[in-house]
């Protein structure tokens, strides 16, 4: 029998092989080799790219170096989205490794947030967790935690310590047995084809009649376009962590097992490849 715990492990240890290349217009002293790295899906670009930065800085003049940013096929990559989400949203169904272009100039102010230090990532990450817990437990669980527990969540993510992270995160995934689920499901739905950053609404895991809401119910409710079919064929893919869960999957189960460390379910809606 397969254990649901294995899903948590698979989700945590998801890696995307990535090839970083320096943007052609960056001024370098000598030619920069591409840099290959396995990026954790659940982490953030600016949290795990110290090595990339170091690698490319070596070939650049100091004065040319300003804040690093990343771009994929013309799209600036938002560091505050988890890496797995960025990949699913922009680069699913493309050949691996994922080819990311590294920039040190012309920071796209209107597209990206600045990230001057890891404290900024930590603040963003903790804000997400708190928001998620507000939805799940009216913030009761996160508020009852001690400062060191909050720190442990962050350190777990930062150092890729699954056990360390889940020792605390487990509490955030609990709910009173009589409730059958969270109050609301923390989720965000991203669509590759729209300008709108994401959809986020209040959605309960259990219907008023007591049935478990499914992924399909959620999409029907907040993003019906995602599951409309033409000629009996669904024109979109609904991706979480690089897989397409069936629409019958209970949303509560997904929230418990396939949320990112920030406790949100980040769901990408992308056009289904024609072939």
């Amino acid at each position, binding site marked *: 029998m397969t254990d649901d715990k294995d899903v948590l492990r698979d989700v945590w240890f998801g890696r995307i092989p990535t090839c970083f290349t320096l943007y052609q217009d960056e001024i370098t002293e000598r030619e920069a080799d591409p840099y290959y790295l396995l990026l954790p899906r659940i982490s953030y670009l600016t949290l795990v790219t110290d090595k990339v930065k170091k690698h490319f800085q070596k070939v650049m003049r100091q004065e040319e170096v300003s804040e690093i940013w990343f771009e994929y096929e013309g799209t600036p990559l938002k560091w505050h989205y988890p890496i797995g989400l960025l990949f699913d949203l922009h680069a699913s169904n493309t050949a691996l490794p994922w080819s990311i272009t590294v920039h040190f100039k012309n920071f796209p102010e209107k597209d990206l947030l600045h990230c001057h230090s890891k404290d900024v990532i930590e603040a963003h990450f903790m804000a997400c967790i708190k928001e998620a817990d507000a939805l799940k437990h009216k913030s009761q669980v996160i508020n009852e935690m001690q400062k060191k527990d909050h720190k442990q969540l962050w350190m777990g993510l930062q150092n890729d*310590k699954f056990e360390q992270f889940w020792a605390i995160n487990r509490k955030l995934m609990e709910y009173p047995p009589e409730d059958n689920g969270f109050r609301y499901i923390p989720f965000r739905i991203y669509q590759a084809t729209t300008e709108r950053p994401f959809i986020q609404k209040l959605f309960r895991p259990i219907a008023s009649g007591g049935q478990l809401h499914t992924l399909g119910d959620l999409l029907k409710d907040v993003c019906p376009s995602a599951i409309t079919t033409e000629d009996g064929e669904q024109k979109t893919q609904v991706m979480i962590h690089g897989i397409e869960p069936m629409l019958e999957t209970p949303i509560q189960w997904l929230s418990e097992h396939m949320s990112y460390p920030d406790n949100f379910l980040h769901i990408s809606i992308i056009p289904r490849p024609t072939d």
Partner: protein
Amino acid sequence: MAMPSSLLWAVDIFGRVYTLSTVGQYWELCKDTQLEFKRVSAVKQCCWGIACDHQVYTYVFSGDVPIRYQEETYENQRWNPVGGFCEKLLPSDRWQWSDVSGLKYQQLDSFTLPSPHWEWESDWYVDENIGGEPTEKGGWTYAIDFPSTYTKDKRWNSCVRRRRWIRYRRYKSRDIWAKIVSHDEPDQLPDPFNDISVGGWEITDEPLGRLSVWAVSLQGRVWYRENVCHHNPEGSTWSLVTTPGEVVQISCGPYDLLWATLWEGQAIVREGIDRNNPQGISWSTVESPSSENGIMHVSVGVDVVWCVTKDRKVWFRRGVNSHNPCGTSWIEMVGEMMMVTVGLNNQVWGIGCDDRAIYFRQGVTPSELSGKTWKAIVSGRESDRSQTGSSTSLLSAGCFFTDDIQNQTSAVIQGDADPSSDTELPGLPPSPASPALLGAAAAGDGPASQAATSARLPVDPLHSEQGEATAASASNDKDNLEMNKSPANPNPSAELQWINIDLKEAQKHPVLSVSSFADTSSLSSLGAFSVGAEDQYGADEHPLWAWVSGGGCLVDLHSPLKWFTAPSGLSSSVQSLSLSITPAQTAAWRKQIFQQLSERTKRELENFRHYEQAIEQSVWVKTGALQWWRNWKPHKWMDVRVALEQFTGSDGMRDSILFIYYMYHEEKKYIHVFLNEVTIIVEVLNEAKHSFALYTPERTKQRWPIRLAAATEQEMHDWLSLLNMSCCESRRIQGPPSHHAIWSVTCKGDIFVSEPSPELEAGPQLMPCDQMFWRQVGGHLRLIESNSRGVVWGIGYDHTAWAYTGGYGGGFIQGLASSADNIYTQSDVKCVYIYENQRWNPVTGYSSRGLPTDRYMWSDASGLQECTKTNTKPPSPQWSWVSDWYIDFSPAGGTDREGWQYAADFPASYHGHKTMKDFVRRRRWARKCKIVTNGPWLEVPPVTLWDISIIPSSDADDEEAVALWAISDKGDVLCRLGVTQQNPAGTSWLHVGTDQPFISISIGAFYQVWAIARDGSAFYRGSVSPNKPAGDCWYHIPSPQKQKLKQVSVGRTSVFVLDKNGNLWYRQGITPSYPQGSTWDHVSNNIRKMSVGPLDQVWVIADKVQGSHSLSCGTVCHRIGVQPLEPKGLSWDYGIGGGWEHITVRGNATEASRGAVPDTAEENSAASKEGEDEESKRKTEHSKAPLMVSESQELDRNSVNC
């Protein structure tokens, strides 16, 4: 979650009886719906009630184990020279047919069934077993004369003989209300009953299942039912117990508390109830808390009393205990109730005064017996969801007003069966009428319409009268109550007086004219109408309750109840606990996620493993301050710093080292342990120290683990959890144990599991068993049995049976080392014993003044340790007391009526009666304590067990049933049906008859079932097979050298038994054609417990195994050199211990590459036995070598400690 489910019983205002399970969400209508009740009083095994006919009924739950009673009589004969032994006796002799004493004449046909609720199991037959020995044919035993000692052998001087005839009768009225038939003289019969209360099961456990049943008659007299116990569920007669006044209502707690209320409004309290006198001796009176309003209702628990006064106020009695059953004072509680009931654990339920809902008292704990708040139980009725249920309720409502129950019942069933009624349903307008009125209306149209309508009509005047009475002055109160409750003659109007209380709520609903109803409706449309109306109510109208009984309902702090949220759309069957795989686990969506995730990992990682990881894995260190049991003398705890360093190797695997830094003569030193060498980490909770022991193979040999202690339990569990996880990681062990796992249990009840390596049982180089790695699994058990198909069962100290759920972790093992599913709450109860010691002196007789050289006057069993009632603590902080100290009458050797055992001097062997030579005496006090933990176990209710055995292996497919045999704690032999890999808990028990209680059972790979009876004799069960799971009959096997046996274990073909002196014996000469074998061969001594596995491997728990420091008791040992031709093996290999209690290797069928064992192994071994005689003789010396023993009695202080 896996709290054993128990039931809350309640009666609604129509007299229908419902139960609500502690794991359920719906009220379920009692299976037997023929009768309406006004009172019920439940305990765990049964429920007593008073029906509307004022008769007493008992409802005994059906179980797989029959309630049976053995009748016996003796046939006596005398020898004479003419006819030999014959029926002609001397005139001075006893009867030809008599009881055992010979004084009572009892012929076979003089035995009759005690009531219509019994049936004979078979005809009379001769008992051929005398004291565990088979007698000669005919079962005769011989003596020189009556009365004398009888022997089974006939001698020259045997002049008389006798034999025992036995016949079993069986109680058949289970799962139905069985009317208590009275055999008393009609004029001595009690008048009709008005109230009943059942309890007292904690007073004494002899005879089994004894209950105190108390009843109050309409004339206010109190009656006690004699001889109610397990094999006599109806009791025998009613005895009158005189009271100082007329009693209205009575309540009996599980132990010695008994309170009743008087018409005058006081309570009376029974004093002097104890084991010798369950009826008690005298009454004392307790005044009502308020002078204006007398006590109307009282309910008692173990040491609490709650009451309701006539103004519906609820009161809690302070200071109640065994020594002061009257308590000290009343405290008023919030809320107004019709009645309250105290259940197990002193939990409290009440029926709300305004809404007739049942409320559960929240927050009742041992330290806060009065609890915190009332919370309404909102569970719906199962029947609200189905129309049949609704129509049943209609029936009852109608019946309530009629004299003839049977006629009315059939009439309305007919109405409901009319198919047209269903189709009419949607068209009918919703009605606000109460079901009571509808019921009345339905009855009004029935054959008893006249009676019903006339019965209904007087209700209103009566209500208004009551209203006036309550508004009137207090002096009227009594009159009012008498009017409501004490009709002396059961004429219709008098009967109405008591039901009017129950119907009061009906008035709240708009009253429809009964007559108009009756005019316009046909019976069938009415039936349909009421169904529609009930459906209308279903969602938001709760049932109206008249009575509730929590006496059989066990709720504790850890039980999550589903009673307080309205049932959702999920069906209760989905929500109820089940060992079978839940739909979520088999769902397609779940499979898809697992499959896609593994595909994703393959796609994204397979070709890129050489890429650098973005995050470097660094060394991770946890440090802390602990105490260490230092390894030089004098041994004592010293403060140390501890650090655990975790590395991640290049292969991504972790390894860890534990450093212990200490000071030695002001010099800093350290010891270190590689966690991949650690074989086990055991919690050692004693001396109020939170300590644990850490073993490596070397330290197991030395019996000298590293012992560490933490300041708090939490801190210890953090370390244990982390160290365990690190050990598992370094050995790459994760997830649930395999089907082959070896399970063991320590004397503390902790559970450990080990994955057997193939080299454990065979191979050129056997793996020594001190190298086995054991990891802990949550839960608390006394023994565990397993088989190689993953079916694992355990038995707790409280004899509860548990089935393994397939999970892992639990207990202190939190987070990821523990499975998310399949971990449930588990509890266990055991006794702590202390001894009260006294010495006789000529002046005062026995007193607690001993000689200066004597033991403590309150001590442990050895007398060396002082143990008083106040200073004795539960075994560890995880345990809490659940009873007060009580005298234990069960120690070996027997006791007198006060529990004393006598001896010439301390320490000596004790006996249960005083003789001239005795100068000291002692008695044992017991106190129950309970642990609540969690683990991968689900209870298999309701039969409690003593032993189990699961067929070790079978090549059958997964679907086929797994043979599982058990012994109940009463000694019944049971066979579990429906056990499969998917449903390891099975479905039901099949009872296998025996003539005496059994204590041990084992089933071998080829369905060979062996068992040990309580008298120490062995039995073989013939013809057991998959098609005949219970076999056909028992064959008696003589014990080895008159030893009394205590355990049997059957492997593939080998049969081993263990006797009460610790000797292990092997059964010689077993062949397929002669499965009983021929003789017993001695194998070893000093054995406490053994397990023979599917490879015929032999593992034991041995005592007095020597280590380099001390002796240890309870050590796991493995028999080395067991071969098909040498089934007894050669020598012992020593593993983990001491402090081990039980091991099962019956799951381990992992054979090393020794090649398959030929199917004919058993024949080979038997056939070649003769030829091998010489060789086996050579080996005999070796194999008979005893287990290492030393005379020294030094205890192993480093072991877990037993």
